[in-house]
């Protein structure tokens, strides 16, 4: 149990998938303009990542390894992730149409989000078992959501201050991301 807690703290704070490993920048900059879309995106990613982590682990260990086709890992994982994202899209469109509108193109872009594939591969590379994989995936996604919410909170306030014209938009977003990453690096050595 303590291991799981340590793992989760590591995944959320110390090795934050976004701020420490720099995976998943695209929706980070693109969706973090308002808090509502950021939380929505964060939840969607949690759902997709957890499921993806679980299913890809299963596919890897019960399909790829027995058949000796580990080299097809990337293709197989992408297939799984794409299907999951499509599925999530359908669910969101049905259950929360407003969120679906707000996320727009960024929802299907979770497919190509390197955070999802990255976590799936880290699960395999670091040799986690199924339960650990699920926890790790969940925690990474929570870390992603945390970074996203932090960013959204800051960016919402950008509208109220004087930003030099050449920095407006993505530029100041990336500068801020760098500063938050710097702050998070203070967690190094925590675990």
């Amino acid at each position, binding site marked *: 149990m303590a291991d799981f807690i340590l793992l989760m703290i590591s995944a959320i704070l110390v090795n934050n998938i976004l701020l420490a490993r720099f995976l998943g920048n695209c929706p980070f900059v693109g969706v973090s303009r308002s808090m509502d879309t950021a939380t929505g995106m964060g939840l969607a990613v949690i759902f997709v990542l957890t499921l993806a982590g679980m299913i890809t682990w299963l596919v890897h260990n019960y399909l790829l390894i027995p058949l000796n086709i580990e080299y097809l890992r990337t293709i197989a994982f992408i*297939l799984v992730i794409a299907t999951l994202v499509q599925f999530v899209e359908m669910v969101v469109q049905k259950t929360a149409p407003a969120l679906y509108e707000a996320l727009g193109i960024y929802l299907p872009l979770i497919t190509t989000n390197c955070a999802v594939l990255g976590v799936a591969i880290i699960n395999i590379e670091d040799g986690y078992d199924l339960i650990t994989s699920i926890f790790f995936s969940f925690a990474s996604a929570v870390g992603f959501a945390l970074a996203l919410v932090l960013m959204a909170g800051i960016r919402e306030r950008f509208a109220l201050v004087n930003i030099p014209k050449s920095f407006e938009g993505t530029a100041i977003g990336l500068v801020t991301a760098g500063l938050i990453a710097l702050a998070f690096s203070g967690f190094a050595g925590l675990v």
Partner: protein
Amino acid sequence: MLAGMLAIGGIGIVAALLLGVSSKIFYVEVDPVIQEIAETLPGANCGACGFAGCSSCAKAIAKGKAKPDACLSGGPDVTLAIAGILGVSIEVKEPDTARLGCWYNLEEADTKFTYDGVKDCRAAAMLFDGSKVCEIGCLTLGTCVNACPFGALSIGDSGLPVVNKNLCTGCGTCEQICPKGIITLTSETRRIQHIYTTDECTSPCQRTCPAGIDIPEYIHQIKIGNYRQAVKTIRESNPMPLTCGRVCPHPCEEICRLGIEEDPVNINHLKRFVADIEMNANDRIIPYKAAETGKTIAIVGGGPAGLSAAYYLARLGHCPTIFEAMPKLGGMLRYGIPEYRLPKATLDWEIEGILAMGVSVKTNTAMGKDFTLQSLKDDGFDAVFLGTGAWDSRGLGVEGEDLKGVLPGTHFLIDRGLDKETPVGERVAVVGGGNTAIDAARTCWRLGAKEVTVLYRRSRKEMPANDIEIEEAGKEGVLFHYLAAPTKLMGENGKLTQLEYIEMELGEPDESGRRRPIPKKGSEKVIKVDNIIAAIGQFPVTDFLKDNGVTTTKWNTIEVVNEQTGQTNIEGVFAGGDSVTGASIAVAAIGAGRKAARSIHRFLSGEEVTLPDNSITPDSKLPAVEELTAITHSSRVKMPELSVDDRAMNFTEVELGLSQEMAADEAARCLRCGLLCYRKEG
């Protein structure tokens, strides 16, 4: 291998099943319109429309938040398809293209800049911001080329960016990214409303032209043989090149930079050359006409100001109607300028072209008698332009003016314009020094007068008439008495027989800057005359305007807020031309008409009638070139003319027009000036 394929295939099938089932469970009703629009869009998700992806754009279009032309990559085909789906009709707007506003690269730009005796850097910095090279010049490093999302820009041979008109979609990315605003979006609609600013590269000639014609551009087009494009360029600022090419006193040539070393470029005759080609081929160039706006404008006065205003308003899609008091259109062009300078057939051809853009006409209809400003408003006109000109003339103010044979200058020429009989005796005296006086004198010579004398109270230097007119009158045998003014008219049996005049000498300058003539006491002389024509000035008639509530200035001209906008004291009523400035030249009226059309268009579109920031005024500080270096020497071509013998007793056009060779030679002389740059040899 096989296992791999089967495994991946297996995952694929499971995925497909899952998605198929869930799409039935989680079925969402999607608006078929949005679906159709999304299918029409290219699906590239390029983001040029400003939306995150094609599906968002489709939704926005369906909801009405974006216009059907939002997709920039799709082009007009996609726009029309989407319009079809939405069931709206599309008025295709004139497409914008990018245009570079600088013609010389860094090497060619003049790096020599003389500061005219300034010896302190701070003072030099106050003059033109201390640039050593023109402030406005293109830096030729190609940022716009890299930024263009459609690859429509490339660096040309001259080192400057070149626009590929087929690929340019008018998205405006280059305009936003250029740090100096040199590459901008342009279209005919924008150019016909253009007023020059100090932020763009202009040459002295185009700034001096009261109509603002892009002179270096049309001369360049003549040089490369693209005559029709040259006519189009001219008509973006002046709808009457046939007329102006014959009668304009060309202030542009006075300021032509080539004139510093050589004779100035024969700008005006080149204009006439290309306009004549269009007329002789009888193949009118029809410019772009914007979609109908349904707005009606009443144009009071069918002279150059009114015709110009009507032309540009029609091009912008409005419906102008000209109300003209005389039987035919043309104003002073028809009723003031004689046939040998501007044949009526030529003027008619030009006016027909203007009317063909969609202008209605009501002749023999005078303001004050047949309609008033109020009646125009009641008839539903959305705006009014007053271009009533300056038709009033003054008498000489001497004894004997009521004798028979005394002809007021304007009436004489107006009667000629009305094709009335205007017999003159053997000896005619014309009083005055302007073009009207010379026109009257040369007309009398053609009507058979044996001795035509022009009396002017100042000297030749102060005479306001065009030099060429004075020269030609001299060739035709007209005598000039300078420093002479009439004092008494004497006659027998009520008919004029003699004129007494007094000699003058020049004293101190008056308000106009010209030296005041002072009569020399006791120097009266008497000459025999049969007719005397007084052409000593023309003034606007404004009584009927004042009755309608229009305010006038102390010189009895219409008062406007700014000559470049033409706004009068009444909202929706604009004015321009001689009625505002006092008697002036045709091209000034034409320019005023175009600028008033711009103001009226802005007024009707609900925008403020203001001038662009930094528009050029007489006080604007612009770099000047005092010396020319490294130019080849060439002589100006001379306009071929009818010999004096061939001119006698007829009104055939005197100037014959340049030949193609002469035009090519003359166009090659133009230095294609920028603010500071000009074409150097070698």
